[in-house]
Every structure is written in C-alpha cells, then in structure tokens.
C-alpha cells in the first residue's frame, strides 16, 4: 500500500470557501488533514488530488462501471471529510481512507440490493486450475473489465478478500453473510475470473 511522503508537492493554491488562501505546496500530510478538518478547501483539494487517483480504481472494482464509481468516489470524499475527526492519526491515512471508500461502495451496493444477485453461480462450479501466466499476459484494463463483469456478490467478495485482504470472518460481518458463503463465493469468483482470462486469449 502506498503512503504519502512527508511533503506533498502539489502546486495548488485554492481559494477556500472562507476566501482565505492556503499554500499547500509545503504542507505535510498531517497538516493537510488538520486544515481539512477545519474546512480549508485548499487542503481538502490537496487531499482529494492525492487520494482520488488511487480510490477511483477501487470504486470501479466494486461498482463495476465508471459511472457508478464516480458517484461512489464523490460520496466517499464527502464521507471522508465529514469523518475526518475520527481519524486518530494512528496507522496509514491512506489505509483509513481506503476503508471509508470500501464502506461507501458497500453501502451503495446494499442500497441497490445488488449483493443478493447471484447470477452465473452454477457456471462457476467448473473449476479450472490457477494460471498466473495467463493473468500476467493481460493488461490492467483488460483485467479490470473482467472483474467488472463478475456478478456483484462475487466481485465484492473477491475484492474484499484478495485485494483488500479482509478475512472471511470480517467479510461475513461486513456483508451479513456466513463465513462459508464468503468462502464459497470467493472460490467461485476466482474460478469464474480464471475461466474468463483463459478464454480471453
């Protein structure tokens, strides 16, 4: 997981809502957070610029489309700035922010009731072997396209378990499913993705 450096070299000078101007070029991550808590738009913009390029792919992976991902990214930043006071400073800020965006995505998926969709479950049962070389042969964009085409439930568990690194116990709590369901969905998602990669070439 990438972390911010001590200094953020963003040549950004933005008029804030309060018509004060903050030079964020020399601000540390902690200073940006502190100013953002106070509603400093320049600092918030700097945080947005630093995080958005990393959080946007995350949102696409969970939502399956760029349009839906943009909405989640926007909601995620609103939530992030609103909850900034709850960031204690312990641990990576990017890691904390990632959780905010994951939660925002999950809330949106729940709201749209897409977690219960389980299309193509049967088709995922034809297990094929793991093929790393096939995976390495495709581009990031091609992989993202295949992940996006997974059923929402599979896609969500795959993202949570394999990319974010949550345990099945944590996933079961987050999604309100059993650990066994989480395991089986991950397995099926993995197989489905491997089959698509294999058939892509």
């Amino acid at each position, binding site marked *: *997981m*990438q972390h911010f450096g001590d200094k953020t070299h963003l040549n950004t000078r933005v008029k804030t*809502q*309060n018509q004060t101007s903050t030079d964020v070029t020399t601000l540390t991550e902690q200073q940006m957070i502190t100013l953002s808590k*106070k*509603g400093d*738009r320049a600092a*918030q*913009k700097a945080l*947005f*610029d630093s995080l*958005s*390029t*990393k959080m*946007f*792919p995350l949102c*696409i*992976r969970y939502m399956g489309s760029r349009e839906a991902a*943009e909405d989640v*990214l*926007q909601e995620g*930043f*609103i939530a992030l*700035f*609103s909850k900034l006071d709850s960031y204690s400073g312990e641990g990576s800020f990017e890691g904390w922010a990632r959780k905010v965006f994951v939660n925002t995505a999950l809330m949106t998926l729940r709201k749209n009731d897409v977690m219960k969709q389980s299309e193509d479950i049967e088709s995922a049962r034809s297990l094929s072997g*793991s*093929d*790393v070389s096939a*995976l*390495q042969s495709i581009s*990031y964009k091609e*992989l*993202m396209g295949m*992940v996006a085409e997974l059923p929402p439930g599979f896609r969500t568990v795959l*993202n949570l*378990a*394999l*990319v974010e*690194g*949550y*345990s*099945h*116990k944590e996933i079961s709590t987050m999604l309100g499913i059993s*650990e066994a369901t989480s*395991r089986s969905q*991950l397995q099926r998602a*993995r197989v489905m*993705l*491997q089959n698509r990669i294999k058939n892509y070439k």
Partner: protein
Amino acid sequence: MQNDKYTDFDLELKRMLGGAEEEVPSRLWDAVCSELDRRDRRKVVALRWRRAAACVAAAAAVLAGIFIFTGRESTPEPVRTADVVEDAVEVPQTETVPTIEEQIAASAGAALASVPEEAVQRPAAAVTTIPSAVAPADTFVPEEVPEEVSEEPAGEAVEAPAEEPAVVPEVTGEPVTGRAPVFVPVNPADPFAWTEEDEERAAAFLERLSYTVSGNAMTNDFSGTGIRQMRAPASGVKVRTGIEEKGTSSYAIPLTFGAGVRFNFSDRWSVGTGVNWSLLSSTFNGTYTSVESDKIHSINSEIVHDIQYVGIPLNVYFNVLNNRNLRFYLWGGGSAERAISNRYRIKSDAGDIFYKEEVSGIQTSVAGGLGLEFLIGKHFGLYLDPSARYFFDCGQPSSIRTKHPFMLNYEVGVRFNL
C-alpha cells in the same frame, strides 16, 4: 484470510489491482466542493437555529424565575404605605411611641444611660411594641429588657436622634407598600451575540461550544434556630429602620436558574461560564422597627425574607466518559454573585409591609462535583450535576448560605452541544 492460502493467482491479482491508479475527471472535485459548501451552509443555518433555541430556553428559564418570584410576593390585599403608617398610630391598642427625648426624660438617668444602640432598634424598654392589633399576641414582647450592652456611651445613643432625626437609610419600601413588588429582572444579556462580520470565523469555533440551560436546587438542613442579627447599621446612625430576627428561621430550598456556554477545548477538557439567577427565601419571626420623624414604630410579626442574586460561574470540566449516549464528568470552579434584591415582607393584619435593603459586596463560592449527561440525539443532552459548594463569608445578609455555608447542590438542565 482465515484458513485460506493465497494462491499465486491471488497474489498477482492483488499486485495488478491493488496499486492501480486512474485519472479522475476534474468535475468530480467540483461536485465534491459544491456538496461540501452546501453542507457548510446547512450547518451554519442549523447553528443559528440551535443558538436561537438556546436563547429562547435561557429566556424561558429567566421568565420562569420571574414567575416564581412574583408569585411568591403577591399580596391579596395590598395596603398603601401611608395607610399603614396611619393605622399603626391610630389603632386603639397601639401606643404611639414616644420620642427619644421623652424616653430620656421619663426614665431614670442611670437606667437609660445603659440602653444600648441595638436596644433602641429593638422593641425594648424605651420602645413600646405595637400590640396585638397589629402583631400576633404570641409574638408580642412588651417592655423587653435589652439583652446586650452597648459599648458606646449612653450619651451618644441619646443624642443621636436629635442630631440626625429620623434618618432612614436605604429604606425603599417605607413602612408598607401594597404595590406590586419591584422586581429587578436579570438582564438577559445575550451571551451568544452574533454579528454578521464574524459569522464565518465563529462558525468553526461554535462547533466546540455547548449551551446550557439549568435549574438548581440546593439541599441541606432548612431550619435554623437562634437569633439572626441584622448587620450593623450605617456608621453614625443610632436608630434606624430595620429587621431583627427572633426565634427559628425556616429556609426555602434555594433555587437557581441559569444559562451558559461551555467551551470544549478537547474531548476531555472544557470550560463553562454563563449567568445564574438565584432566589434565597426564608421565613422567621422577628421585629420590624421603623423610624418616622422622631417616632419609632415596632411590629412583631412573621417576616418573609427574599434575596436574589445574579452570578457568573466559571467551571472547568473533565470528561471521564464520553460516548454517543452518555457523558460522565468531574467539574470544579467558582462563582461570583451580586445581590440584586434584598427584601423583607412583614406580615401584618393591616397589610403586609415591604422593606428593602441594599446589599453591597460580592458573594463568592467554590464548588466541585460530578456530572452525568444523557445525550439525546447528536446535539441535545439532559444533565444532572450533583455537587458541593462552599460560600465564603462576604458580609452578605443572613440566609441559608450564611447559616450553612457548605451546601449540596443538585443542578439539572439541558445542554445544546454544537
């Protein structure tokens, strides 16, 4: 992952997806920014409403105090001041009090020479008490012998009335008034004054404020025994209008209403201040002595004594527990109060007599206690602050505070957490 091993496929998938970055359309920041602006504006509006609610609640508390006070002092059959003076003289059973000179002439020199200053104020040998027509028979104290001996020479006590005839210091009610009591309301100065020019700057600051509206009842032993002496009269005044308590006092529960603001410096520490209005009330049997020209009138009766204070507390709070539903804290601080009204109501068959005295000086106190606040919603809380308070001797009129300087308080109130 529990009981699951990452395959090479999983690790490669994480590597390719986990560290990915993508350009974000610039319009997204504009959308985020405008939504933040909209929420900020909504927050300011909400702050204004909460501030208005706090002011209304504070005003309600003050009005409640006024209501209680005026309710206590209303007399069904008011009597005018002049009427009562005449009645006091014309009632058949009532003797006209002789002048000091007449008392001197009628009394043996040695005996009169020993009459102390205080004895002149009292319905003592030289002063005939207004009898049962005005004062109840059981409180009638005829020809009472002075109990205390003045250190001042008798000659001064005798000469004083001649030199300073009928000096009636600080008497605003004169013998009797049937008029509605003059209540000096607490100035409900808005501690939350808000100007447009500092609105933006204050918005962030206000997020750390709490407004409180509180009521407070103090408990202890509400009865007192013994003689409560009046404070010394003004220098140079030998005979003056005044009240002397005799026998047992009964104290009403002291009431305090207030509104305040609490500055939250951190999750743990905060400082609170505001304005409080307090009412101390007591009832006792006593003697009211008035001086009219060169005549002294005295009434034995039941007397109701009310003192009102306006005070400014300053407290420091430490949150021991602070979660979404409950806040438990310790606090300590002090308060400075000034009396705005000190009034006696002398009950009389001919009509109640009201007598006021100015009170100088500041009543100071220190307090400490616990606090429990039940948070209802995000911005509203009900709290209970049991505490102990010590009132310093600051030369204030007799009250439950002078009788029991160490008191237990139970303050309840509502707090608007912004």
